[in-house]
């Protein structure tokens, strides 16, 4: 039996499929009644701010967009020591502190959670600022949740259908439905421009 479990969604919800992890924890709160000791958290892109949450966890489930060079929309599960942990050198900015750094730093500080499972999905589209999940990625959320539930069961934690309190989640206007429905049209938003990020421009 694992005492304290952190279920963390990371990524920037403003960048299309980068929001996969955050949307998974949101769906988790809407689908399952989680027992005491299991915490849901939208970690956003918070880097080192997340250290205290890792310190307070015996086991960690992370939802995130991953880049393992797989076909878009493919799920990838990584466990324990296989979860990437490294510190990037030659950073240009603090804003390049990825979750890999956070895990490496937690290891260095001696408070890396004993058990870790990364539930990842290869994105279809990242380069769409203000965009939502692409259908192929959104369609993976139920599967991701099922894997999380099975992982919790392995750890001796039973979850039932229902809802969970969600203080650690995004504010209401940022929840997926409100966010995606309130998006202006492509013309209004001028989502055209730099060919590197908007390849539809000839």
């Amino acid at each position, binding site marked *: 039996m694992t005492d304290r479990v952190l279920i963390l969604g990371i990524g*920037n919800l*403003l*960048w299309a499929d*980068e929001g996969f992890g955050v949307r998974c924890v949101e769906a988790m709160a809407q689908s399952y009644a989680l027992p005491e000791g299991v915490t849901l958290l*939208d970690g*956003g*892109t*918070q*880097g*080192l*701010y997340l*250290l*205290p949450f890792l310190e307070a966890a015996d086991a960690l489930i992370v939802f*995130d*967009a*991953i*880049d*393992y060079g797989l076909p878009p929309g493919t799920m990838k599960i*990584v466990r324990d020591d296989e979860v*990437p942990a*490294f*510190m*990037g*050198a*030659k*950073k*240009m*900015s*603090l*804003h*390049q*502190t*990825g*979750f*890999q750094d956070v895990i*490496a*730093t937690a290891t260095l*500080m001696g408070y890396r959670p004993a058990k870790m499972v*990364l539930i*990842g999905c290869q*994105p279809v589209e*990242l*380069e769409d*600022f*203000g965009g939502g999940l692409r259908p192929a990625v959104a369609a993976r959320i139920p599967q991701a949740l099922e894997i999380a539930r099975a992982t919790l069961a392995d750890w001796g934690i039973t979850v039932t259908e229902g809802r969970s309190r969600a203080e650690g989640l*995004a*504010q209401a*206007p*940022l929840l997926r439905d409100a966010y995606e429905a*309130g998006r*202006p049209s492509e013309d*209004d*938003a*001028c989502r055209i*421009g*730099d*060919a*590197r*990020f908007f390849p539809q*421009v000839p």
Partner: protein
Amino acid sequence: MGITTPNGFNLDNSGKRIVVDPVTRIEGHMRCEVNVDDQGIIRNAVSTGTMWRGLEVILKGRDPRDAWAFTERICGVCTGTHALTSVRAVEDALGITIPDNANSIRNIMQLNLQIHDHVVHFYHLHALDWVNPVNALRADPKATSELQQAVSPNHPLSSPGYFRDVQNRLKAFVESGQLGLFKNGYWDNPAYLLPPEADLMATTHYLEALDLQKEIVKIHTIFGGKNPHPNWLVGGVPCPINVHSTGAVGAINMERLNLVSSIIDKCIEFNRNVYLPDVVAIGGFYKNWLYGGGLSGKSVLAYGDIPENANDFSPAQLHLPRGAIINGNLNEVHDVDQRDPEQIQEFVDHSWYEYAEAGKGLHPWDGETKPKYELGPNAKGSRTNIEQLDEAAKYSWIKAPRWKGNAMEVGPLARYVVGYASGHEDIKNQVDGLLGTMKLPLTAIFSTLGRTAARALESEYCGRLQKHFFDKLVQNIKNGDESTANVTKWDPSTWPKEAKGVGATEAPRGALGHWVRIKDGRIENYQCVVPTTWNGSPRDTAGNIGAFEASLMDTKMERPEEPVEILRTLHSFDPCLACSTHVMSPEGQEMARVKVR
């Protein structure tokens, strides 16, 4: 062939071109290109933002009371300061005033963010430009202990055994093969000057800083209800105060206030015993490396922040100073008005946008964001893979904001130069004290190290200010005032049909402004001019180079293929890139690549 810019820099792009490009999942974001002469001295500098954000258009049509939640997601490092700027802009537009307690709590949160950001920036990012952690493994723990006691006699963690333990921990970590940090730096570059014991001392403090930063952010949880992504509120702060009973869940009670007080004390202690002494000690070894001044000795801008009293933003009432200095004239501090259409304007002649009228600057309220992506005739590579930019043409997604036509530096050093020139007592005492200790003239602050030192001094000052506002908050509560929000204009039916407002703050990285137009209860236009827009701006219509560009000029590079000096100076600005680099990948990757052409 050389040219002289109106802001006084001699540019010569005939030498070897060096391109430094950060590698992120979404390629680009910020890149710089320099030309060095045959002595390795930088004679031309080009800084570009290679990504367009356009938050403005995401917000169009949304509820202005929600804008802060979106702006909080712009960035994973500076969340709270965008939220504060946003609620200020909306309050300004709708004529909403906030209660005294809300002012104190907002100030504590904003100051807390400054300290958090400055400490993390220094130890997690910038120290590695000066400190060599590989060298730390070779240090003698006893010598390190002696150094520690000499530079900071009051710091309790200073025994040889303590430093030996840390060193062993680092060794074990390196041996486990996980620390890319130790493999990927330019650690044998002669630009690193510290002796091993100073390297071990600073590396140890990196670990202490990590422990401290965990504590610091608890303040955001207490006042913001949650962290990360704390809650904010148009009209005040979202946390109720109730000190008389256990109160509602989440209410601020004495127990929570005591926790806030103890965190503030820890910040003050760390700044005094660790951060400032480290900057003095490290700076002492680099006293002869005074490159990187750029615009700091010429033109600096600060909007000011941390109002003593709620709703009063007049310059004398701001603890972080407001003002502009141009042409290096420290005898004249100009006031800054973010509403004046003639003061802050953005130019796009060298940016990938077009305006209806070319060559004109636009005030943010009238901002246009129409992309025009084209490379100049002398660019190399292709549209999809730029090898070399043509800075004579359009070359950046960052617009060029100017204050009365002048390129300006913003950030801690800009604030400190404005404060010093305005006779701000705390700032003047700090600066004079530091320069006295280091036996350096005032002109030494116009440098990369000056930027680094200003950030440390500011962290110390912000610690004291936090205490001031905490005491003020507690006193006000004791006097019976528990109000934290003004909701009289919460309902959109009380708003005018059309309104416009501006919110300004001093973010850790510098002057931050949000300009909003509201129509029929919805956001009509939203423009953010962020600190890195000022500092990272490209050339303007008149040919003035921006702050990053200016700061790289005339720097000597030890090894042009190892841009330690470029990173050192750019890092000193604490640049802001978009936070979208959190995609997990299986292998460690370098965060920057360098090409010499």
